[in-house]
């Protein structure tokens, strides 16, 4: 048993953005176990200051490419709340479809390309092209179709174009939606079932580690909450999204250029596992079956299972998308113009679930519709304290293992959270009032 341990992983691979893992144990006492965020801050406030409400979503989308749709949705909801812009039922359904597409694409990307190589003991997805070609081709096909949803409805999957305050600049045609539906039914659903089998075969490689913590996500009475809902905690139940500051409490810590958060304990977890724990009753049957097959049960507190929860959600998103397309076609697509006539100027909140967890934007506009104040709280920032707490429990628990094994477990732990470090150093918490 080693009582001295010194781990430093610089620029951890297969995550978005730059982070280091640092662990220090001296004579059996853990001195340090943390994820350091070293991504360069990007100062979004400087870009938003004084800009028109038309530009807010365009700018905040660039906080992060992989979460760009989620940032747009949160941004549009905040702007619409602040300016009193009502949006139509059709707009909401189209946004839900985009959200499903983005969740699908991100969850698939993470499970197959970033996490699975660990389960198979290889350094990247590329060796798998030779050893498991049919799996790689399937993953690419699923990702392509998920991105097609973004391309058709959003104009582009990364930094979508058509979503603007009050609606859409272009409405997809019925033919386009029918084609998406056909592909979802004929390709995505079978591919999802095959994915569950693949993941079930790999699940043995998931470390057995548990730590009780608080899980926070949106929750809605009507559906598995992704686009909209109230803030729900496993500790204290639900509150309105306007109360988000009480549930986040952002603060600066010295080892990270991203701020940390806490609610009712020293840390909490957001993301697919939090959503599953809070909302499993709202999943469609196929997703519930998948969870059972993959050994994921409500109340799960093994953070490594986040990847499995992402797979389960992928199935839900695929099937629910088919249902939404049916409803849209039944109602008949209307060529609506976006509603961009403000009825007030003030402060608004947008809370939405992005693949990595709950995301909040809050804006204040002046009477000309220009941004005077913005705040944005990112899922990865919310998870950082929870990751540190996991590491502090994990290292002493597995200290019998070799340094290499512990390092791999820590890397896998951080990857399981699917952290988005680009997002977490957005730096947007500012008042612009001079």
């Amino acid at each position: 048993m080693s009582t001295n341990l010194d781990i430093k992983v610089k620029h951890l691979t297969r995550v978005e953005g730059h982070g280091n893992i640092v662990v220090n144990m001296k004579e059996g006492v853990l001195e340090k176990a943390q994820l350091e965020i070293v991504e360069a801050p990007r100062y979004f406030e400087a870009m938003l200051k004084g800009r028109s409400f038309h530009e807010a979503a365009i700018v905040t989308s660039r906080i992060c490419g992989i979460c760009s749709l989620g940032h747009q949705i949160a941004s549009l909801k905040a702007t619409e709340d602040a300016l009193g812009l009502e949006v139509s039922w059709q707009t909401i359904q189209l946004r839900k479809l985009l959200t499903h597409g983005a969740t699908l694409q991100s969850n698939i990307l993470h499970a197959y390309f970033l996490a699975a190589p660990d389960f198979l003991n290889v350094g990247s997805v590329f060796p798998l092209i030779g050893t498991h070609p049919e799996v790689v081709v399937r993953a690419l096909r699923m990702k392509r179709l998920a991105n097609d949803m973004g391309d058709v409805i959003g104009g582009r999957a990364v930094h979508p174009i058509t979503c603007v305050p009050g609606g859409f600049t272009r409405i997809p045609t019925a033919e386009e939606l029918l084609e998406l539906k056909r592909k979802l039914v004929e390709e995505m659903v079978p591919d999802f079932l095959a994915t569950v089998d693949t993941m079930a075969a790999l699940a043995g490689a998931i470390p057995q580690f548990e730590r009780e913590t608080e899980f926070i996500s949106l929750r809605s009475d009507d559906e598995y909450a992704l686009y909209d809902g109230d803030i729900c905690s496993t500790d204290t139940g639900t509150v309105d999204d306007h109360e988000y500051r009480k549930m986040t409490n952002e603060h600066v810590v010295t080892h990270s250029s991203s701020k940390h958060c806490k609610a009712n304990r020293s840390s909490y977890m957001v993301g697919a596992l939090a959503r599953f724990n809070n909302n499993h009753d709202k999943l469609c049957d196929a997703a519930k079956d998948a969870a059972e097959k993959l050994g994921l049960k409500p109340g799960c507190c093994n953070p490594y299972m986040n990847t499995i929860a992402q797979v389960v959600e992928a199935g839900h998103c695929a099937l629910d998308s088919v249902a939404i397309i049916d409803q849209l076609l039944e109602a008949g697509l209307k060529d609506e113009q976006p509603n961009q006539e403000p009825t007030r100027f003030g402060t608004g909140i947008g809370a939405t679930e992005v693949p990595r967890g709950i995301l909040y934007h809050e804006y204040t506009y002046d009477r000309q519709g220009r941004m005077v104040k913005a705040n944005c709280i990112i899922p990865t920032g919310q998870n950082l304290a929870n990751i540190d707490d996991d590491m502090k429990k994990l290292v002493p628990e597995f200290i019998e293992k070799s340094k290499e094994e512990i390092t791999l477990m820590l890397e896998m732990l951080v990857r399981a959270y699917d952290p988005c470090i680009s997002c977490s150093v957005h730096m947007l918490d500012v008042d612009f009032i001079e």
Partner: protein
Amino acid sequence: MANKPRVAIFDFTGCEGCELNKLNFENELLDILAHVDIVEWREAMDDRVDEYDIAFVEGSLSTPDCIERIHEVRRKCKVLVSLGSCATLGGINAMKNIQPIEEVREEVYGEDKYLFPTLPALPLSAVVKVDYEVRGCPMTQIEFLKLFTALVRGQEPVKPDYAVCIECKLKENECVYEKGMICLGPVTMAGCDAHCPSFGQYCTGCRGLVTDANIAGMEEILVKHGLSVDEARKRLQLYNVNQLEGVQK
């Protein structure tokens, strides 16, 4: 091909949207991989190596560490390609360059501002020689594929130096000015096939300015269509602050 080019991919300060856009070539990805060896790509793999033929770089340079790393990349590669607005222009990050940096940092971190060093956001070309560029935010996929094919075949890629409006007219789009919106198509470098106006949205200027862009004329049009003078300048600055106001060192 006997010797496949060895390719490395790097990211600096940006949103990784450009890198992601590369992973989004699902249909072409396996073909692309058949023609090159990807030897280093932190976002997708563990390996790190000492030399490569082509380096694709996303993101702007905005910390002392970035400057050091880009020199290293330049030393190790034969051909350097900048991907997207951040790497090519400084991009959206460069908006902070026209605000006093101390103020910006203080607004965000308060008294902890010295914990995290930062510099003005610079395009790669401000620090090292760049051989080719792919513009756009995110980088334009068709342009990337064209450049990639040309490089693998050893041909010289062609690049357009005319305005987005020309591509937009060729596609017979309804001009968004007709719908009461504004648009930066008249001064923005083509190559995206007028993608945004084709989806009913205005051009934000993400591909940078055409050579000899008539900025005063553009501002006049924006003001004529209802923007204040200040707002018109702001719209133009979104991606082009280094070009309009001069790269700040």
